[in-house]
């Protein structure tokens, strides 16, 4: 029977293609195509803080002190990116890493229930975030003057900066290692007098660019604080950390945050992040 030359060619192409498929990822893994550290940092920032154009989540915070005593904070957090066109940023929506607004409605413990905390996050280097606190029993819209973002958020081990995001331009970033799973970055602050750490390391998942662990080191090079992403999910296909932990390695205390009822792109209007909704919380986004 006569062999068909076409068949040979097809088999040859299949063979080459399969081999190539095995070769190319290997080449990438070998480090031949490692992205620049700036690209890694930008991508990781986006994955961690800019999924979707807006979002909401119910948050359960468990604060364990060094003696094992537990406190809890439960709140709903709403977030909205100031989209291109609303700001001077001209990037396309998928690459947006600019200003955002957050609205936090507390549900427990009882003495902070219905209190609202609102932040307008500004990424410009010289601009402080704007913060408000609404105290419902006084019908009081309080403006908060706090320039230090590295203080405890509602008594937990997370700082305000951990919740809203640390500006990527505040540190000098260096790629110190590439493993099969992680990009390992070492970050040194540009203004060391403004922070309490001497440097911090980030382990960023290579496939998803999600920061999995962050360790903070003091002047002696000792790790004293550690963030870990414990659980991850993909509501609406968007990568979300659903459980994370911040440990104080000096005292042994830690805070665990669990996110549930996570939704993205719900079409939240910009005016939710104004005084109107401090006084009259948008229950349609809060009650689930």
């Amino acid at each position, binding site marked *: 029977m006569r*062999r068909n030359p076409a068949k040979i060619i097809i*088999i040859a192409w299949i063979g080459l293609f399969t*081999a190539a498929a095995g070769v190319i990822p290997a080449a990438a*893994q070998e480090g031949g195509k490692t992205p620049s550290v700036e690209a890694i940092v930008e991508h990781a920032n986006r994955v961690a803080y800019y999924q979707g154009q807006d979002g909401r989540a119910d948050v359960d915070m468990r604060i364990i002190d060094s003696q094992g005593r537990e*406190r809890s904070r439960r709140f709903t957090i709403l977030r909205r990116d100031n989209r291109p066109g609303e700001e001077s940023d001209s990037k396309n929506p998928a690459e947006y890493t600019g200003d955002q607004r957050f609205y936090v409605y507390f549900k427990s413990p009882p003495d902070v229930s219905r209190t609202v905390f609102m932040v307008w996050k500004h990424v410009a280097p010289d601009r402080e975030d704007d913060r408000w606190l609404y105290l419902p029993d006084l019908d009081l819209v309080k403006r908060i003057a706090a320039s*230090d973002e590295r203080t405890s958020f509602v008594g937990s081990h997370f700082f305000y900066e951990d919740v809203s995001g640390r500006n990527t331009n505040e540190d000098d970033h260096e790629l110190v290692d590439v493993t099969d*799973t992680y990009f390992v970055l070492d970050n040194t602050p540009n203004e060391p007098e403004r922070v309490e750490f001497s440097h911090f390391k980030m382990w960023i998942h290579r496939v998803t660019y999600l920061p999995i662990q962050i360790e903070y080191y003091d002047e002696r090079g000792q790790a004293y604080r550690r963030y*870990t992403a414990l659980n991850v999910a993909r509501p609406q296909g968007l990568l979300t950390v659903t459980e994370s932990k911040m440990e104080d390695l000096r005292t042994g205390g830690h805070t665990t945050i669990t996110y549930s009822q996570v939704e993205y792109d719900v079409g939240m209007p910009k*005016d939710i992040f104004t005084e109107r909704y401090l006084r009259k919380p948008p229950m349609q986004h809060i009650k689930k």
Partner: protein
Amino acid sequence: MKRSKNKYKDHPVTAEKIVLLIFVALWTAVCSAQPPRLPQGLDSGGPAKAARKKPEQGSSGGPALPSGLGGEGEGTASQPALPSGLVKEPASEMQDRQKPEPQPFSLPLDLAGFWELRGGLRLQDDPAQDDVSLAETRLQLTYDKYTPELISRGRFRFTGDMIYDAMAENHDVDLEEGEGFFDLREFWAAFTPVDFLDVKVGRQILTWGTGNLVFLNDLFPKDYQSFFLGRQLDYLKAPSDAIKFAFYSGNVGLDLVYTPRFDADRFVNGTRLSFFDTASGDLRGEDAPLETEQPDTWFEDHEVALRVHGSLEAYEWGLYGYTGFWKSPAGTDPQTGKRIFPELSAYGASFRGPVGAGIGNAEFSWYDSREDRDGDDPFVENSQLRFLTGYEQEIAEDLTLGVQYYLEFMLAHHAYEKNLPAGFPAREKARQWLTLDLNQELLAQNQLRLSLFIFYSTATKDAYLRPLAAYDATDRWKVEVGANLFMGDRDTFFGQFEENSNVYAAARYGF
């Protein structure tokens, strides 16, 4: 049988073989060069192997991947475990993680509240009052219901206090005064009939303006008795029975509050706190409390308060208007000798926004005492100009400092002096206050809060200090200790309360 003369009969087999050989060779080479794809803890050895590996450095350093990203939580000393969820997970697992956390204990039916025990002692002997300034227990219950199905963005709220006040003369309930064994704090319904309008009707707490314990354009009722006696700061604001319309358009809003019947301050009248009575020239206390005549006709003795507000970036501005009455007694009926609440209109403006590292604010108000515009009626308070400027900044970790300058300027002071009855000390033309507000949060979970608020009157050198220490023992139990300290000459604004200086303590259980 005819023999096939196909040249390719042998070659094709050979060509295929070569291609296949090349392919196999390449694939083998590639596979052997590739490091193991499986993340830590997921190799075929299973948990035992992973456990053995745990404390050692893996071939690929770094934390174990979290569940969701391909790892199962096992990490090495130098590499974090990947979270679960970073591999394709079955849909059911993803749904599990989306389930809300089980709620801790809370009352059913949208109920919440607290129970509180509060006691206070006078620091000095006040002949006109008891030594015990406060001895009460309070149970607050709140019912809060969101009812979008009934009406657009509808919400209903009821808050009531059941009080046993051992120092009260009687326990008869007076809902307007907030006296007796029951104090109705809130009882309102809110809804949004059209997109740009929020309506709230009923008994509600209302606040606007930029002052910190200093009020210019906030003409909503205050409870100075509770404030000076040492009740929780929330009680400084007394409820209004009113309807509030809030219109919004872009950056600008208009609030209109109609109070159908005048809501006076819960002012110091001598029953719980003594004060200096200029008429008698002496302290006046529970033996001879103030008698007042209050405007109380529905829809005639009404109040209208208006605010236009907006923001330019992070800068907030407001314009205010009010028509009604002086909120605390500001005149006397010459016939009966009772204190009265003369008619008042007020107009003002405010501004607030970031200034340097802190927040700055400025506010102004003109109080138009309509019954005595010329200032020559000694029995009615004169018109005033009020001015406020303030600044607040975080000065150290968890330590905030706020300062304010407040000026109250009496208009037509000359006419006032000229017409003052003999023997009455003349009030100064300008009353100036400096205030200081220090707040410090301490301990690992910020559960200890120390605060100090000082009012200081510069011309008359009297002062009022409010130190407070509050400790959140658990999420539900809270204790606080504080004091109200008055200093100065008897005929000064704060000094008159000197004998009322007290310390207080409270324990509260929230649910």
